[in-house]
């Protein structure tokens, strides 16, 4: 019997969806490992999730303080060694602030918080979240954020698109793009991106809230399944 892949979830002060991420990992058959912001220790996990929430209150800029947490040095080193790192919502903001992902997340176009179920289209299978999927698949998940509009300078955006770093886009049920499907005004309807190496992914939608059919759609299941496979690949046979 192969060992369970161990997925670490970092709790910063103000993290809110940390327990939800741990629950989703367990639901999908992995072992969730709670990590603490103040400890320089990843406890030997095979992948790391930075969860949603309002780390340190997000009073300055979302994710701007969390990047300086002691645990982030370890996360940075883990990412540099090719380890899978996933940032969800506030975690995505932290990864952008840390320079591990390109672009930035700013106030929603409508200037209001939005909590809504959306459809997202998978744009690439090169990422630890989408390794088991093919481009074009449509997944249903919730978003819930006030500052989730992905932006990047024109040149950078061209590079992100040109190098295929977009992992998810907001879309309709059939995968069609359209402004009415874009919950926050994100550039090019971008819902998630990866780094060049392909091991670090950030996304605004919450796959951890979309694995249990008793509380909604299950578009997060294939993403966690992919994450567990890529983590398992690090564990080895």
């Amino acid at each position, binding site marked *: 019997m192969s060992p369970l892949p161990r997925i670490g979830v970092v709790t910063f*002060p103000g993290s809110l969806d940390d327990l939800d991420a741990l629950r989703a990992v367990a639901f999908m058959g992995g072992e969730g490992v709670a990590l603490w912001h103040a400890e320089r220790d990843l406890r030997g996990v095979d992948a790391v999730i930075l969860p949603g929430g*309002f780390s340190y*209150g997000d009073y300055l800029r979302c994710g701007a303080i969390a990047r300086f947490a002691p645990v982030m040095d370890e996360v940075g080193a883990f990412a540099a060694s090719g380890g899978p790192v996933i940032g969800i919502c506030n975690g995505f903001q932290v990864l952008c602030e840390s320079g591990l992902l390109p672009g930035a997340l700013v106030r929603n176009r409508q200037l209001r918080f939005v909590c809504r179920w959306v459809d997202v289209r998978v744009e690439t299978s090169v990422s630890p979240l989408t390794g088991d999927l093919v481009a074009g698949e449509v997944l249903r998940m919730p978003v819930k954020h006030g500052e989730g509009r992905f932006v990047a300078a024109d040149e950078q955006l061209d590079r992100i698109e040109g190098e295929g770093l977009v992992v998810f886009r907001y879309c309709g049920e059939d995968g069609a793009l359209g402004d009415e499907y874009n919950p926050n005004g994100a550039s090019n309807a971008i819902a998630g991106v990866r780094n060049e190496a392909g091991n670090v992914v950030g996304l605004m939608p919450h796959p951890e809230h979309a694995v249990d059919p008793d*509380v909604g759609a299950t578009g997060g299941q294939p993403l966690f399944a992919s994450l567990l496979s890529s983590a398992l690949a690090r564990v080895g046979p």
Partner: protein
Amino acid sequence: MTEPLHRALGLTDDEFGLIRSTLGREPNRDELAMYGAMWSEHCSYKSSKIHLRSLPTEGPRLLVGPGQDAGAVDVGGGLAAVFKMESHSHPSAIEPYQGAATGVGGIVRDVVAMGARPVAILDPLRFGPLSDERNRWLFEGVVAGIGGYGNCIGVPTVGGELQFAGPHSANPTVNVMCVGVAPVDRLVTSTRQVHEGSVLVLFGAATGRDGIGGVSVLASRTLEDGAEETRPSVQIGDPFAEKLLIEASLELVERGVLEGLQDLGGAGITCAVSESAARAGLGAELDLDAVPLREPGLEPFEILTSESQERMLAIVPPGRLDEVRAVCARWGLPAVVVGRLVAGGTLRVRAGAATVAEVPARSLADEAPEFARPREAPPGQEDLVNDDPTFATVTTSPEDAFVSLLSSPNVAGKRWVWEQYDSIVQGGTVRGPGGDAALVRIEGTLRALALSSDGKGRFGLLDPYLGAAHAVAESARNVACTGATPIAITNCLNFGNPERPEVMWQFAESVRGIGDACRAFETPVTGGNVSFYNESGDSAIWPTAMIGMLGVIEDYRLAVPQAFGPGSMIYLAGETFAELGGSEFGEAVVGIVGGRPPALDLDRERSLHRLLVDAADAGLLESAHDCAEGGLAVTLAESAIAGGTGFAVSIPGDEPSHIGLFAESASRAVVSVDPARAGELEDTASELEVPLTRLGETGGPRIVFDGVFEMTVDEARAIHENAIPVLLAG
């Protein structure tokens, strides 16, 4: 001549005399400030107590009744649901964002203080019409404040209720309800043994000048011209600090190191310390020099009555102090010993070398005077209800009336509001906002809490007894529509100035209505809050008894949706009478707020709840939806819109069609059922003696009222969902 200090602090001359005789001397300034806060209407319930005592507060599931931070009921499996509703209307009228935000913070701390993890927030709201720019500012600010705070603390906002009415223009009603879950044996109730010598640990945020006089200046007086100048009395919220406070408090409870836990809300540290001591039959020593301050130079009375947010007081045996400090440090929260419990019953407050106050703790906490204030029905009350309740002369076409109702802000979809709230964090939201009741599952079980909040202000204006009883009935019906059994209520009673006999009459009648309904449904009152002085000039808000109902469903997989699916038979459970008095139709279509509200037969209502719950248990129902504002037509349309599935029905009876379509008779629900199982439903209904009338069937893209009018579901949805955004665009 300047006003005597005690009057400036909100105390009457009689109360001042009482304080003097309790102390046997003249109270000093700091002591007067403490009494002013603790004996305020907001803290002492001095006008309402004698009425509230008549409410039913016992039942087999009841664990904690009124008088503590929040009530608690046994929900099975060794777990308790803890819940409470409170008003933050006064601060919200002055500063809507912070007023609403700190309302959320306060009620969440009440639940945490019982040792429970908060799992849901609901927000029933009332504003003046959105045609007015200031009302739009208040509305948008309150919604943003609730979201801004609630979304940052990891507690889902799963429901609420929203209505608009002219008398709420100057005085919006902002009520917040929080529900928590805790193991029964871990509840921090006042029956815990608290010992002499135990230390008082203040942890959380530092104390500043915000919120001084919140209970006495804001919440216990009417807002007159110049009310904006009281803005410094509005507290400022820090949800990040609250999140840390929640986690630290629950960790302390889990480790079993506390004898008591109290949040610092109205009347600040004075309230927390005096209540803790009085409950234990002890006194306390409080050292103000130890209290961490946000700025230097606070006067003792300011520290004593500050309502700075995100603070808690723990009662700790000296031997466990290090553990408490360590937990707080882990969450980055300052924790300091500010005093200890002592024998003798005296609360002694020191600042520097001086003793600044020395008063019996019990006199602050429990011995405020009680008033049996005069009450009398307002002149013209009878005339209000004597209008023709059938509105026989109405000439508006049924279709035009339907469109007016569907787009009336009271009936229209509230998506604009609830999409601004995180309704899914914690992963337990089986059913979120937008339906009859929210369902939040209890982790690790198939059980879910069913939650609904309801108030019937228009009915309350016309007949406060009926208005309050209808609010209880509707909240129970909403819970039963999901298949859950109603268990218990909390409430927030929103009224004008109790010193006016007509307001006191409205209040007493409302309490009587709640009591009768709760006895009939066996849903005891676990606690609540009274918000008086919601008036400006001569204009009081509509008497609004807001009810928060908690129910339980044993297997949430059997919960019944509100939405229609295709191929079902539609039934009306209950009966429609010629009752348009106080209806949405009356106000939105005819322009009349008058007539006698629908009759309420509490036994028939209870039978309907039984039918809904039994039918859900048996898996008979494809959908169920409560009939309320806008009547049968709106109920049918809402189920169609929710499911994207149309229907064709004929409205029974030989009354004029506007009665069948729009009357708001009580004790009704629209249910749909698989035709193969319709017989079983009819049998169950007949056993319970609930009238059941077949209306038609579901399916197709149109909503069809046979021989009256029809339109597409998409058209109806657009009318329903766009109404509020369009009004907000000005």
